[in-house]
């Protein structure tokens, strides 16, 4: 066969070129979608993209250490979400997920208020990619940030 242009070689080249073109086009399109395809706003996105007022959005980041405070009514929780560059105070009334804790990830669904704070209607816990037995907790593990 060698390097001669046979029908098979031609078909192989065509198929591989088509595959490269499809994958390339999709990757270009999707990387351009970066902000639109994001699941949540990070606190520093708000200063970059403006405050998305009047529509339901999600705010995600780490729950700042020592920031969780419960109101006397027993259901309202206040805490601060940080992404290491900016912070947003969040208010939520309801049941928090089991994995909601300080220095861990959270995604809050709700609305921004004009003063830049966030009123959540639902909380989701976001954990990181680390798994380990309880004995190692603390020794090895401390989540710094959810940034990739």
């Amino acid at each position, binding site marked *: 066969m060698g390097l001669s242009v046979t029908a098979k070689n031609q078909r192989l080249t065509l*198929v591989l070129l088509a595959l490269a073109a499809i994958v390339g086009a999709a*990757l270009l399109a999707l990387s351009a979608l970066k902000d639109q395809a994001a*699941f949540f706003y990070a606190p520093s996105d708000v200063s970059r993209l403006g405050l998305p007022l009047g529509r339901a959005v999600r705010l995600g980041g780490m729950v700042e250490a020592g920031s969780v405070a419960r109101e006397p009514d027993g259901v309202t929780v206040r805490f601060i979400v940080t992404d290491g560059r900016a912070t947003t105070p969040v208010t939520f009334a309801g049941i928090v997920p089991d*994995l*909601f804790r300080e220095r861990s990830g959270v995604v809050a669904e709700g609305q921004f208020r004009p003063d830049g704070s966030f009123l959540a209607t639902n909380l*989701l816990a976001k954990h990181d990619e680390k*798994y*380990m037995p309880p004995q190692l907790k603390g020794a090895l593990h401390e989540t710094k940030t959810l940034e990739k």
Partner: protein
Amino acid sequence: MPALHAFANPARFLRIARPLTPVLFWAGAVLIALGCWAGLTQTPPDYLQGETVRILYIHVPAAWLGMGGWTGIAVASISYLVWRHPLAQVAARAIALPGAVFAAICLATGSIWGRPTWGTWWQWDGRLTSMLLLLFVYLGYMALARADAERGGDGRVPALYGVAGTVLLPIIRYSVVWWNTLHQGPSIGLTRSSIDASLLWPLPIMLAGFSLFFASVVLMRMRAMLATAKAEARMRRMARA
């Protein structure tokens, strides 16, 4: 390429596949049983999620095989388009059903896992949505391949679809890197893992077991398809006689 063409011969393929099928099936079943026992009883719970983390021994291999199945369809489709091996077309069609089932297992176990950990059964984040799309792409492939066969097509259209669907694989893999998502980032890379070794070791056993089981199902389906084609050809000959 004489080596590749040797496998394109259905008679030779059947001579190898017939004894190989039960070997793969039972080896897979033993490894899956071993992996389940290890994952349920021999590993410690996670420091954060507790016992819930054990579902990863099903969820992660199912996700890999859901994506691996489509890789197989893509490779078989390219072989069919380029070399016109009839067996490559049979292989692609045989992979579609188990691939779709494993993608569905990945979505179902992920949903069951998401409820206690994240606090939700389902969210439209990049990872979850792209994996759901892969399941739909599998279903589309199965419908297209059947329609093509019923209308006496030569299988080129499903093969092109098989190549085009490959675009989803890097999207699923990198969805958690490109976009912020509810799903955590990748735990396992080529050289490192952020799953502690004491929790990780049943995972390769389960992956090997799932893969062997997957391969045995593909061989069974390929043999059934070849037998059906043979029976139909015989019926046509008898009808003519």
